[in-house]
């Protein structure tokens, strides 16, 4: 399944660039001043109805309610753990938010520092206090495989429209791959498969100048997977 090559004017905008006026309103990555709209971040200008948005090219993951994220336990106390979710805001995970019955002081028996966990963002307030939970379908401690990090903004690219890109990756590497909304990716398979998946994902994250990236990734995977006998 290849992309349609659409003839579009790529509009890269920078902070302070004028991107709209009159009836337009500022959306994501934009702000209004004296009746005009300006970009607030480096990104691609996008107009949707009467909103002017800037889709950012860079920036840290900002947690959103409902996101599934891959976290790393960094601290623990008697009745909670602290999780690094690759965001400016570390997320506390309370014993009430895990599927086990944890006695006071027994937190270390279930999750310890360095463990990798699949969680959901259960709440976030205006002061950006994040609440995470493991109490939902599929959420659990992850073991085996490897993890890597990409920019959170590239996550849709790694998944692809209707899962096209991620299915391509899974097919050729014979790995299980889970992409957290926070830019952390878990890959499980044999060492060769994992290494191939990581290289392909790095290619997606870094190879900015390629047009027709899905095709290029497919070519790369076909060639490499033959060499390692997949």
């Amino acid at each position, binding site marked *: 399944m290849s992309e349609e090559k659409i003839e579009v004017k790529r509009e890269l905008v920078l902070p302070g660039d004028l991107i709209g006026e009159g009836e337009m309103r500022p959306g994501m990555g934009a702000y209004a001043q004296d009746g005009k709209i300006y970009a607030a971040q480096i990104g691609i200008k996008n107009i949707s109805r009467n909103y002017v948005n800037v889709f950012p090219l860079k920036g840290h993951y900002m947690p959103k309610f409902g996101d599934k994220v891959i976290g790393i336990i960094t601290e623990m106390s008697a009745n909670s753990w602290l999780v690094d979710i690759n965001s400016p805001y570390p997320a506390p995970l309370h014993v009430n938010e895990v599927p086990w019955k944890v006695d006071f002081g027994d937190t270390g028996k279930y999750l310890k520092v*360095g463990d990798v966990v699949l969680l959901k963002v259960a709440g976030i307030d205006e002061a950006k206090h994040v609440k995470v939970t493991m109490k939902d379908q599929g959420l659990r401690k992850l073991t085996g495989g490897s*993890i890597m990090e990409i920019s959170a903004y590239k996550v849709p690219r790694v998944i692809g429209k209707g899962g096209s890109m991620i299915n391509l990756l899974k097919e050729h590497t014979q790995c299980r791959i889970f992409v957290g909304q926070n830019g952390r990716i878990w890959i499980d398979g044999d060492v060769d498969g994992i290494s191939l998946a990581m290289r392909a994902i790095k290619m997606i994250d870094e190879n900015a100048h390629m047009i027709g990236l899905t095709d290029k990734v497919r070519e790369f995977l076909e060639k490499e997977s033959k060499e390692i006998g997949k």
Partner: protein
Amino acid sequence: MSEKIVSEILRDYIHNSLEEGKRIDGRGYDEYRDIKIETNIIESAEGSARVHIGNTDVLAGIKMTVGSPFPDTPNVGVMTTNAELIPMAAPTFESGPPDPKSIELSRVVDRGLREGHAVDMEKLVIKEGELVWIMFIDIHILDYDGNLFDAAALAAMSALASATVPASQFAGQYPDYDLGEDFPMPVKNYPIMSTFVKIKDIILVDPGLEEENVADARLSVSTDSEGRVRAMQKGLNGGFSYPEIQDIVRKATEKGNELRDILKKSL
């Protein structure tokens, strides 16, 4: 310097890969990442070099001044080495007074150069017991992606090898002494440091960041062009067996020669 938590999964992945004979970036156990050396890039310094080993990026600058020798060594110049892990180089580096890691790095790099007789310190004497050249080697870590020891030592050595002693600039201040004209830094030897880590009993050269974070033990060895050992430093809280150390020392000599060639080509 605060420590970053390494996930169990990444640690296991590195171990599993090594069990299959692979490093996570595809290198061989005895392979260095790409090395780039640029010299004479800071005009305000008397010598300078910027070294990249992979993405690790280190800048060394040499500043010279004139002053009194140390009382117990009246017939040699003075050399001081200082390395700074500046906060821009990694999210875990903090501002503030030198922490034990930067102090260790400074002292080990200094030892390699000093014991390796990189500079003929006797040629830095203006008048014995009275006036000598004082040299400051300042190393700035700009981007940290593993193996600071080798990058810092190589940057310092490259800066020395391309430095000029600014005698003419000081002549006016010391009219009673014959400072003479500017002359090239009297480099005598090219000691090179090579660092190895042990992960699950496998010895790897030039650890990348992730490898360094899961390594059990580390050994840096500085050797000269005759294969003589000039300085060593073991780091991290694991241990080495005697045969492992022998193996590392032999490899360090080989790698030292390779890196010395790269250095000389860049001058």
